[in-house]
């Protein structure tokens, strides 16, 4: 694990992302907030809309060693127990939402998205979807925007017509 050293380039890069206008705009819009940050571990809360329309939020643990050359490892987190969120308490909604936060196998306990450190290499996932894959020009806000978009997507189901 990378030590908590402000001279560490990964630490500097993460700090710069957290000070960026795009990241701060998300806080201002109440889309996400910092719960705690002690490099290389960042805990974020991201706003969500449940299938019944209720507002909620989910926590995510980012491990940022090697950032941004190495993609963040991101887990859906339970801040009360300081452990992975139990499978039965994970976000519900469309297939895209359920798949993103599923428990996808032993030692594969991260969010399942192309930009994620572990899942990005699974099933050629990142190569198949370069617009969602991680590269060193990406930033933390790119991930937060994707998570927020997934977690609030239930709102769209409620504004469209009744299911056929």
């Amino acid at each position: 694990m990378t030590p908590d050293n402000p001279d560490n380039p990964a630490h500097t890069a993460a700090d710069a992302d957290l000070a960026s206008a795009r990241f701060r705009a998300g806080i201002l819009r109440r889309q996400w907030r910092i719960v705690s940050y002690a490099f290389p571990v960042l805990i974020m809360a991201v706003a969500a809309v449940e299938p019944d329309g209720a507002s909620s939020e989910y926590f995510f643990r980012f491990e940022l060693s090697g950032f941004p050359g190495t993609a963040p490892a991101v887990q859906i987190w339970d801040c009360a127990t300081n452990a992975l969120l139990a499978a039965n308490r994970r976000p519900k909604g469309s297939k895209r939402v359920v798949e993103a936060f599923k428990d996808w196998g032993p030692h594969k306990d991260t969010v399942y998205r192309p930009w994620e450190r572990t899942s990005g290499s699974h099933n050629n996932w990142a190569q198949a979807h370069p617009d969602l894959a991680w590269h060193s020009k990406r930033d933390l806000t790119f991930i937060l925007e994707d998570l927020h978009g997934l977690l609030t997507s239930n709102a769209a189901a409620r504004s469209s017509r009744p299911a056929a």
Partner: protein
Amino acid sequence: MQVEVTDIEVMVEGEGLADVEIIRLSQGSTAREIVAAIALKGGFPAEEAVLLIEDSDEPVDLAIVLTEGTVGGKVHHVHRAKKIAVTVFYKELEKEKHFPPSARVQRVLDWAVSKEGFNIDPTIAPDMELALHDDKIPDDQKTPLPKNAHIGRYVHHPHHRLALDLIRGKVPNGSGR
């Protein structure tokens, strides 16, 4: 006694900017100076532009004095267009509606999937995204626009129009296409 003068931070998007930026203006500045700063960056005459608050329709009075109370907690937008004619294409259909340049892509998406838009089935509505219109590229190869982006970012004066495609977002392993 020396009085410390603190700058006011203003979060703003605008014509000619690729993303949201933070600009710093002196205490006592007016809203007109937000417009002037973005016009300078964007290379257009400030007197032709309006200032809007994110997702709102009415221009801000440029004479207001900037304080934390007037600009804090808001994202602004500066553009020469007051309204943008947005056409969204979905399958063989298209629909048009006018939005201010300060409207986020999310606001247009909300309309496009709603009963007033394409009345998308709620089982797939959460998966929908918007991309720049291009009938030469298959939907599954289009890049969805960031939902927080102001649509004015994609519109260049004097063409106050924007064409978008309503597409299905990616599901793991491509199984949802």
